[in-house]
């Protein structure tokens, strides 16, 4: 339960405070209800989704004849049980597009079109199962590559003195806000020439390029804030740059690397435009698959809500488990100003 009491409150009743409380609750409701609606809907049978609002999900007697419990005298809990289903998730994962549901079809022995009723169906190119794997395949290298490359660059920019260092960094700061739209056409043509369109390396490279300016910027700010004495003594002990980089810099920048990794991971995971253009339907990622389901008429709300929730699952886990790092990674660029 959300408590709105102020820790510093003097305990007196206060109208402003009451109104503020109402305001907070209203805003929180507006922020929560849409997501709750999606979650509830994704567990309801198709017939009910299309005929009753999700907020009536606990009413066990509404909806069409076909959705009613066969025994009118069944208990509330029994009736409620038939009003929720995991079919939407199974259908979304396998990419089932038939008129019933994947599980029903398989149980009755009629194999759905192009499927085998085995674990292999999770790899159906139309399904979210396959898309999940594709998203993983896109995201992991697209997170590791830019950070690895940025670590070296950031080290040079923070602890080496050389001509042009200032200019390089100033350019980086500028590049951070270049919209990806500005580079799409030439890169698409370049990839077409190299036969890279529709392959994972195309997206990895593109995300690396666009992740770098922010990654270098964030890491450089972290590294240059480390105390100088650390390096001086190591240097006087005869350590070279490579040793300092390995033994001092990397361990000390781990929290920043974590923040950056989470930020970049979620950014790539949630991206639509880059996957849409460089991968498209050949290796559909989750966001692509969903946007396709929205724009094509084939998929109903039952599939769409389940698919959307599947795509949100990992980000949500990351967010709630590692919220502090995520917020830091997001804010680092702006906070500096």
């Amino acid at each position, binding site marked *: 339960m959300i*408590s709105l009491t*102020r*820790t510093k409150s003097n305990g007196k009743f206060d109208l402003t405070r009451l109104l*503020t409380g109402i305001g*907070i609750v209203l*805003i929180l409701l507006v*922020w*929560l*209800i*849409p*997501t709750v609606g*999606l979650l509830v*809907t994704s567990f309801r049978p198709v017939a009910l989704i299309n005929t009753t*609002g999700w*907020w009536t999900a606990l009413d066990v007697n509404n909806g069409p004849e076909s959705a009613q419990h066969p025994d009118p005298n069944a208990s509330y809990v029994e009736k409620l049980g038939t009003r929720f289903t995991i079919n939407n998730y199974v259908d979304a994962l396998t990419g089932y597009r038939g008129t019933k549901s994947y599980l029903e079809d398989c149980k009755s022995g009629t194999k759905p079109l192009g499927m085998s009723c085995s674990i292999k169906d999770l790899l159906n190119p139309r399904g979210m199962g396959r898309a999940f794997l594709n998203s993983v395949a896109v995201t992991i290298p697209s997170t590791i590559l830019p950070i690895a*490359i940025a670590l070296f*660059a950031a*080290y040079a920019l923070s602890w*080496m*003195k*050389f001509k042009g260092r200032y200019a390089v*960094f100033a350019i980086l*700061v*500028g*590049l951070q*806000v*270049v*919209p990806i*739209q*500005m580079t*799409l*056409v*030439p890169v*698409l*043509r*370049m990839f077409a020439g190299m036969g890279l369109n529709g392959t994972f390396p195309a997206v990895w490279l593109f995300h690396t*390029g*666009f992740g770098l*300016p922010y990654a270098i910027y964030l890491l450089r700010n972290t590294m240059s804030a480390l105390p100088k004495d650390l*390096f*001086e003594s190591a240097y006087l002990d005869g350590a070279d740059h490579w040793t300092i980089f390995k033994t001092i810099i990397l361990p000390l920048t781990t929290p920043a690397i974590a923040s950056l990794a989470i930020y970049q991971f*979620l950014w790539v*995971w*949630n991206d*639509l*435009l880059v996957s*849409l253009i460089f991968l498209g339907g050949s290796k559909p990622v989750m966001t692509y698959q*969903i946007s396709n389901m*929205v724009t094509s008429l084939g998929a109903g709300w039952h599939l*769409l809500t389940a*698919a959307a*929730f599947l*795509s949100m699952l990992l*980000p949500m886990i*990351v967010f709630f488990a590692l*919220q502090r790092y*995520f917020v830091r990674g*997001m804010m680092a660029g*702006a906070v500096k*100003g």
Partner: protein
Amino acid sequence: MAKPTVAPVMRQKPLVPWLYLLPAIIIMTVFILYPMINTVGLSFKNADGSASAEVTCREGQPCWGAFENYRYALTNELNTSSPKAFWESFWISSYGNMIKWLLGMVSGTVIIGLVFAVWVDGIKSEALAKSIIFMPMAISFVGAGVIWKFVYNYGTSQVQTGILNAIISAFGGEPVAFLSKVPLNTFMLIIVGIWMWTGFCMTLLSAAIKSIPEEVIEASRIDGATDFEVFAKIQVPIIMPTIIVVITTMVINVLKLFDIVYVMTGGNFGTNVLATRMYTEMYTNSQYGRGTAIAVILILFIVPFIVMNIRRFMKEEAMR
């Protein structure tokens, strides 16, 4: 050993720094710098980049020569038959929509973020309340698009399964087709943007509010300032620099915005923005010249912010 005049760690062979920088520089040159220059070049060419844009001009039609793609990008959506038609077409063009998005989303996120940050400051469930507002940041625009498309759902039959239309019906109103009704639809899309990005603004602004020394607030309260006066005359002016950073970040985000519009309306029903138009030109129509011209117009809007960013950086460096 002679005492070094520079901090010893900053000494190395002249090539070493560039070795550390090399991979980053190569990748950024190939994927950002070179394509940017190339994009500018392509914007003066025809559809497939094989000839000057001038060849696409038609007899008897207005023509801007090599700037033909820019003429298309700037004027194609506009109806110049009468001043009234002009304004009507402008208002639902990608430029008109950009103004709506900028005004609506930037002010919406910053104001709600600021007010919420102040409201929850110091309450017991502050962390929980804030993570609820921040949560949409973690999900994709696509996911948010689906969530809100369902909220706005317009049932053609008697039953409204979208919660917004159900509420309207419950109060005896007529259900609204939120996503196809011009110009209401763009505002409905902006609400989705606000829902997603308020958490970002709120977190930054909240951190700034917390950095105001307690004594400053206390002193003004002792002087008899009301909550609102403290907010308007003390807190807001002190955190103005942060507010400005937040506003500029949001302006850049709005200018680049693509996913929400693409997923929810596909840019139809007068909801196009520059990014979705560019996508249509380059991908659906294979008009690379026109697509890149739109991209160049987009970056022209962003250039001032690039300059601002670099200036801010130089100031920071000077203070280091």
